[in-house]
């Protein structure tokens, strides 16, 4: 089965929903509900970059401490069971690829999602992202890029098998 490498955006919704639910303030989140249910059939993947983005946001925006964030990350792993992709490529190698992309195509946003894209590419994973610029412009560099809706459709097909 293919592995789906998730961008951080889709995961952040999960972290917020789950935390508020435990506080007794449930909020609607189709994204988080989908992740939990679909993880029984689909195999997800994350990397150190995903973790770095989640930790930064939880620490800087909500003032959560290191231990709490680590336990949340463990809880996420236990519930969703993603693969943890170790990035063995050197920074030099990753950024050469990124420079290759941005010197050919004008990209407006910062390079973080391109870093995710290169990690997915180097590990032959399907990159799931909501970043329209990546979806529209980068398929010539890597054809395994899908948006959230496509992920949902793939899950539906998998479920119907």
């Amino acid at each position: 089965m293919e592995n789906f490498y998730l961008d951080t955006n889709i995961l952040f919704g999960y972290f917020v929903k789950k935390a508020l639910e435990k506080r007794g303030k449930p909020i609607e989140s189709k994204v988080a509900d989908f992740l939990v249910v679909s993880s029984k059939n689909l195999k997800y993947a994350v990397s150190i970059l995903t973790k770095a983005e989640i930790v930064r946001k939880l620490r800087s925006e909500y003032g959560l401490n290191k231990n709490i964030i680590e336990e949340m990350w463990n809880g996420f792993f236990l519930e969703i069971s993603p693969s943890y992709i170790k990035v063995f490529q050197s920074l030099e190698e990753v950024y050469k690829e990124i420079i290759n992309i941005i010197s050919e195509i004008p990209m407006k946003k910062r390079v973080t999602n391109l870093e995710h894209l290169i990690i997915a590419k180097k590990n032959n994973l399907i990159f799931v992202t909501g970043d329209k610029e990546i979806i529209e412009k980068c398929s010539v560099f890597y054809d395994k890029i899908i948006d959230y809706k496509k992920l949902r459709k793939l899950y539906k097909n998998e479920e119907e098998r």
Partner: protein
Amino acid sequence: MEERKVLTEEERKRIDEAWRIAGEKIWKRLQYWKKHNPKKYREFWREYWKLEKAFSEDLDEEIKKAK
């Protein structure tokens, strides 16, 4: 598919407590923004619903059509 790890009672309690504390802090921060930084509060929910919409816009349309 890999087998999921079975948690000990202590591990489960620790993780649950971490989520609860996080929820408390996130909730308080949202309430603080609502009162003192409404721009940030609106931005939080805008981003949140933007993601939900990006994820399920077509699904919502399908449900509407089915009705």
